[in-house]
């Protein structure tokens, strides 16, 4: 029992910090609400899809920006997708980085785009790390026989 309480406290502190620091927004809370006994892996599944999708988008963006003649419409299309998916899972800082990226696409500024890509990558890998830690904590709580604390 003590272990579960300790893990739950750790979980609460960790996730509260993620919200406070702007890594996650309310949309992530919405996702957690959709998880229940009949769909116990929902958050894990959505987050996994996000990781897969994001890494593909990052590669596509890098490739598109390396073309001798950059197709900004194509770049914008990838950024739009990335902005959408990060918004859908509540990855707020990634979403904001994508919004800045969009502006440079519209202005067709290659240097700005390159910098934005670096920034988006940075934010993405940060939140990926955080989410992996969070999911690991969840698994530990469940393995110890506890329930994941309700944040609302």
């Amino acid at each position: 029992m003590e272990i579960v309480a300790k893990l739950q406290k750790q979980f609460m502190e960790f996730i509260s910090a993620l919200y406070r620091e702007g890594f996650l927004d309310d949309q992530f809370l919405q996702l957690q609400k959709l998880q229940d006994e009949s769909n116990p892996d929902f958050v894990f599944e959505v987050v996994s899809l996000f990781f897969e999708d994001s890494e593909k988008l990052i590669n596509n963006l890098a490739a598109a920006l390396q073309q001798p003649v950059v197709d900004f419409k194509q770049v914008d299309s990838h950024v739009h997708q990335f902005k959408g998916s990060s918004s859908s899972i509540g990855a707020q800082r990634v979403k904001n980085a994508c919004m800045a990226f969009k502006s440079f696409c519209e202005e067709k500024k290659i240097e700005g785009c390159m910098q934005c890509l670096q920034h988006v990558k940075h934010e993405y890998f940060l939140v990926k790390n955080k989410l992996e830690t969070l999911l690991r904590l969840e698994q530990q709580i469940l393995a110890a026989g506890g329930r994941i604390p309700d944040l609302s």
Partner: protein
Amino acid sequence: MAQVQTTMDTQFHVLAVDDSIIDRKLIERLLKTSSYQVTVVDSGSKALEFLGLLSEEKEGAEAREVGVNLIITDYSMPEMTGYDLLRKIKGSSYLKDIPVIIMSSENVPSRINRCLEEGAEEFFLKPVQQSDVNRIKPHLMREKVMVPNGLKRRKAMADLSPDQKTRKYNNSNNLCGIFWQNICE
């Protein structure tokens, strides 16, 4: 009134269309929490295929039930946008009565206006939440549409009351309701 073939299955069936794998997962889960039967496709053309619009109708083939009470679609999709899909549905004599809801990550009044004018029931801003999905119920078509066979074109007409048709303009707690109130007042 046209003959309506009701099935034993009284569960409402929603067809969801989105090119984003994450959004498809999300909308499917949201719709299932409301106990809808859900079919999810990743493009407008797959939606039309599912609805039978693209398939060739063979003479003497049995009429089959499409079985969709509502379509919810993303706006920004490659090749065929949600707006293009909406137009094709509203332009089809046997699909036009299926209610359509549009989702978009962008709040563009002219876009919302265009969709509503083309016959969309509602416009949801992404990310779509449970509170949005809870607003679907009044728009559902009560009877499922029949895909006509080549010889007998019959369609089930939803028995919509007049105030159900104007409901979207009076609903003050949704985006398009607010939008129309601002335009009209």
